[in-house]
């Protein structure tokens, strides 16, 4: 089938009220969730996931993608108004957005954030449409050794989601890998870490682990310190961003969008580094660079373009290779699996209608984001005013219903609570949860492809170097490790210099 035929097929799948409504509701839920400090786009996608079980696959996945995109933009609203980024990706938006709000220009900052977000989102979606199919057709030639090296490379980029300590990130990822081994061994069919419990034969439920790691620790943090999420809301001001503002920031928006696309298509990097890189590039190139950090609208545009440019691009490795680009796409991969779909190169052959339907839906999501985001800016105060004493019990009940709905099992709810305490402890000790989840998802793929490769070669490790593709990924992994070690050494040297200078 030609590309045109595929798009027509996709259009037919997505051209129904149910799919469009699901997408619009998803964007609205995402914007609201992203706008509430204490919630996050990740938590919103995790909580929305169980509601999609009864939907058609395309409808459910579009809804989750809507929540994702809405959530990334929604995070900029509290970042600008109360200096509390709704998502880590919005941290760069605080730098200029909040000073603008303090000057009474919150409305101008928010509308520019919206324009930049929608432009970057559209560019990112177009990049996905152009490159995912090409990458998938290339990946069809992958065998177990190639996949093993690809997944190993994806795991090395866990460094990007490890936060301030790479070693803690590795501990977290190792725990994820260990938890992924629970269940039956795929080669010999023997039990691993199930201690005779039939509930653990199939391994730990992904949704239970996911919700437990990302939503329950927030509730426990609230219980630990009920006054930890308070902030002061600013007024919006009368003026929005003008076309002249948009035109002045256009270069930075386009640059930020492409930075987002490039960084987003590499698994594991995510939106926050992209937002900061886009921001620093805009500051370097801007004639108003001395105003950055003091309330420069171009800074808001660049940061938002950087973080939204990632949104479509993270789906490139997800759809083409079956590798999640960040934590949220790791959750979305779970949605594919629950609906009986396996993202990866074969999906472009077996489920082309769904893939191209998603592409069409994503274009619609950029338009939906423009209108819903605009409305959200005006009604934000009412959204952000949901009392914490109601919001967190609501989240708890949603978590329990959502987790129970997967297998009709209270055992899964127990697993979710247990993982919640693990996540809370990790939060308290600064151990990042994202590497845990990514390793939990990639762990079985890594092990299965490794063992399949070993079975193919009669246990000879030479098979892991059999083609230029494996060498390519070994090379990338080595480069990443070297870059991480160099970065760590530089940071340590800077820290020493800073402490000796401070004396």
């Amino acid at each position, binding site marked *: 089938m030609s590309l045109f035929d595929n798009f027509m097929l996709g259009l037919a799948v997505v051209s129904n009220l149910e799919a469009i409504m699901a997408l619009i509701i998803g964007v609205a839920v995402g914007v609201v969730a992203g706008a509430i400090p204490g919630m996050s786009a990740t938590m919103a996608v995790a909580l929305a996931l169980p*509601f999609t*079980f*009864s939907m058609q696959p395309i409808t459910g996945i579009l809804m989750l993608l809507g929540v994702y995109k809405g959530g990334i933009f929604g995070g900029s609203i509290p970042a600008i108004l109360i200096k509390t980024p709704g998502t880590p990706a919005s941290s760069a938006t605080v730098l200029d957005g909040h000073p603008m709000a303090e000057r009474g220009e919150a409305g101008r900052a928010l509308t520019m954030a919206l324009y930049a977000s929608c432009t970057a989102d559209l560019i990112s979606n177009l990049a996905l449409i152009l490159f995912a199919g090409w990458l998938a057709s290339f990946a069809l030639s992958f065998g177990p050794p190639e996949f093993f090296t690809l997944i190993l490379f994806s795991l090395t980029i866990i460094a990007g989601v490890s936060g*301030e*300590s790479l*070693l*803690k990130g*590795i*501990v977290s990822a*190792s*725990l994820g*890998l*260990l938890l992924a*081994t629970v269940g039956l*061994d795929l*080669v*010999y069919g*023997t*039990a*691993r*870490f199930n201690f005779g419990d039939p509930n653990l034969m199939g391994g730990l439920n992904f949704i239970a682990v996911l919700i437990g790691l990302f939503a329950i620790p927030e*509730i*426990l943090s*609230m*219980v*630990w*310190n*009920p*006054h*930890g999420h308070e902030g002061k809301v600013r007024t919006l001001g009368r003026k929005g961003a003008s076309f002249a503002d948009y035109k002045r920031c256009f270069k930075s928006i386009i640059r930020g969008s492409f930075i987002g696309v490039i960084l987003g298509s590499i698994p594991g990097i995510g939106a926050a580094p992209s937002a900061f890189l886009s921001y620093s590039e805009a500051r370097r190139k801007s004639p108003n660079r001395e105003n950055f950090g003091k309330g420069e609208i171009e800074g808001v545009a660049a940061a938002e373009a950087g973080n939204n440019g990632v949104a479509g691009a993270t789906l490139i490795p997800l759809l083409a290779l079956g590798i999640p680009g960040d934590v949220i796409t790791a959750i979305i991969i779970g949605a594919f699996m629950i609906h009986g779909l396996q993202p990866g190169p074969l999906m472009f052959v077996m489920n082309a209608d769904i893939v191209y339907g998603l592409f069409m839906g994503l274009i619609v999501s950029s338009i939906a984001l423009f209108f819903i985001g605009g409305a959200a800016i005006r009604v934000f105060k009412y959204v952000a005013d949901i*009392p*914490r*004493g*109601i919001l*967190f*019990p*609501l989240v*708890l*009940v*949603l978590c*329990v*219903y959502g987790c*129970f*709905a997967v297998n009709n099992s*209270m055992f899964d*709810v*127990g697993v979710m*609570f247990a993982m*919640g*305490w693990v996540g809370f402890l990790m939060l308290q*000790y*600064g*151990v990042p949860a994202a590497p845990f989840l990514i390793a939990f998802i990639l762990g079985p793929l890594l*092990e299965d492809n*490794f*063992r399949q490769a*070993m079975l193919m070669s009669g*246990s000879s490790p030479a098979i892991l170097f059999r083609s230029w593709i494996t060498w390519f990924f070994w090379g990338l992994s080595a480069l990443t490790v070297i870059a991480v070690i160099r970065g760590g050494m530089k940071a*340590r040297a800077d820290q020493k210099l800073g*402490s000796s200078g401070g004396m």
Partner: protein
Amino acid sequence: MSRTSHFHVGIAALVFAGFLAVFGIRYGVSSPSNVSNIVLSPTFWPYVVAGLIGLSGLGLVLSARGAAAGEAEEPRPEGGWMRLMIMAALMVGYVLLTPVLGLVWTSMLAFIGLAFLIRTDHPKSAFLAAILVPLALYLFFAHVAGMAVPQGAFVRLP
């Protein structure tokens, strides 16, 4: 994060890796006796992961020596531990009471319990939400998604 947290996490990782290597994998993973090669054994991967945990734990302990003291730890909120213990009891109760009372009624109790635990300033709204939210979720999951929501032994919903 302070070097204390590096040290604590490092020690915990080392102890856990040691436990896995000595007891956990031996008693937790069954391996057939006819495995032709160690890399194909069901125990191979867990041992690799245990090694990784141990090495990163060691790295954390060593890095804690050279790390800066970091920021002073935040003061512990008053009554935090007590609230966490009550929350743990609430979670256990949620799991154990659901088969008896049903998911909807247990959720209402848990909602109210948590709302008061985090000292809600809006007790009336919380009470109303505690009734409406589980009922709305029941309607969605039972009647739209077709899920068998546990009804319990006392009051059954249509």
